[in-house]
């Protein structure tokens, strides 16, 4: 799972408090990096679609990068390349994703999140 995907994931367990179900907290994380083709245009268009606070917080908590808390007005190439590296080239190989609302744990194994719930949790 790339960090861009984490930016969209939320807990969907029955009765989970919607104000606490996002973002999922990453614990016991094993990261890997991969090469993704850089496209300035793509990244520029992508940034406004992200939950910026969550990306900044996640990148910092995982020790991947320090991104500015506020989106800069002028987005130079160094900045865009950094976002590219964080969102598209950083992958979570193993982890536990924990919901702060209900405590549900979603595992990531071999890079694949398993987001299934039991029948009685849906």
């Amino acid at each position, binding site marked *: *799972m*790339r960090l*861009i*995907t984490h930016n*969209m*994931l*939320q*807990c*969907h367990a029955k009765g989970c408090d919607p104000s606490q179900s*996002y973002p999922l907290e990453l614990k016991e994380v094993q990261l890997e990096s991969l090469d993704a*083709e850089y*496209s300035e*245009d*793509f*990244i*520029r*268009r*992508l940034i406004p*679609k992200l939950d910026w606070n969550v990306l900044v917080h996640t990148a910092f908590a995982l020790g991947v990068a320090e991104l500015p808390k506020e989106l800069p007005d002028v987005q130079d190439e160094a900045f865009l390349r950094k976002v590219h590296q964080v969102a*598209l080239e950083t992958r979570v190989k193993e982890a536990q994703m924990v919901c702060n609302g209900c405590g549900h744990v*979603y595992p990531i194994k*071999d*890079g*694949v*999140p*398993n*987001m*299934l*719930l039991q*029948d009685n949790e*849906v």
Partner: protein
Amino acid sequence: MQPNHLETTHVHEVYNLIADHFSATRYKPWPVVDSFLRELEKGSLGADVGCGNGKYLGVNKEVFTVGSDRSDKLIEIVQKRGFEAMVCDNLSLPYRDACFDFVISIAVIHHMSSPERRLEALKELLRITRTGGRILVFVWAFEQEGKRKYQEQDVFVPWKMPKKIYCPEGQPTKGSTPTEEGSQDIVYQRYYHLFVKGELDELITRTGMATIETSGYDRDNWYCVARKT
């Protein structure tokens, strides 16, 4: 059978058992899906829900698409191909509201075995789509052009798998029906709800969450492009 049990036995377990064979037969993108994906704006974010082996995930390199499927075996294949993928269920998607520009559902909704579940699956697809974003849905048609003809809308469709290649001695054959003497195939029964003309459009309209932009028939399937309102 209860709808969820029917799907567990005759959809989810079957796709896991046939994953390798299914994947080997799925590589050609359907033209309508192909052009929908190619015409997306650069930098679009999307989800392919029920992505199978991920055959649509690499069609347009200028968008980012997250694949997901109920079958962990198929998702393993998607992951190995280097695409973004996760295991989840269309009926309860783990994404925040309105976070995608587009969502595709290709040959998935017809595996839901009650009208309520089909409606719920469509509502989930629209919940995760942003206002103004679009979904593309394909389902199997009752009105078949090909050799297949059906008497009922809710049917079992056999999947034949060459025993020698995919099920060497000692492998599980759970869910398979007994094959004739000397047969070279293992047969699994997949549940389908075949859509009649107008049924998909009606269901999408009933969500109250979208307007229909295009709908049509292509290669034994009904399809629909709808815009989230």
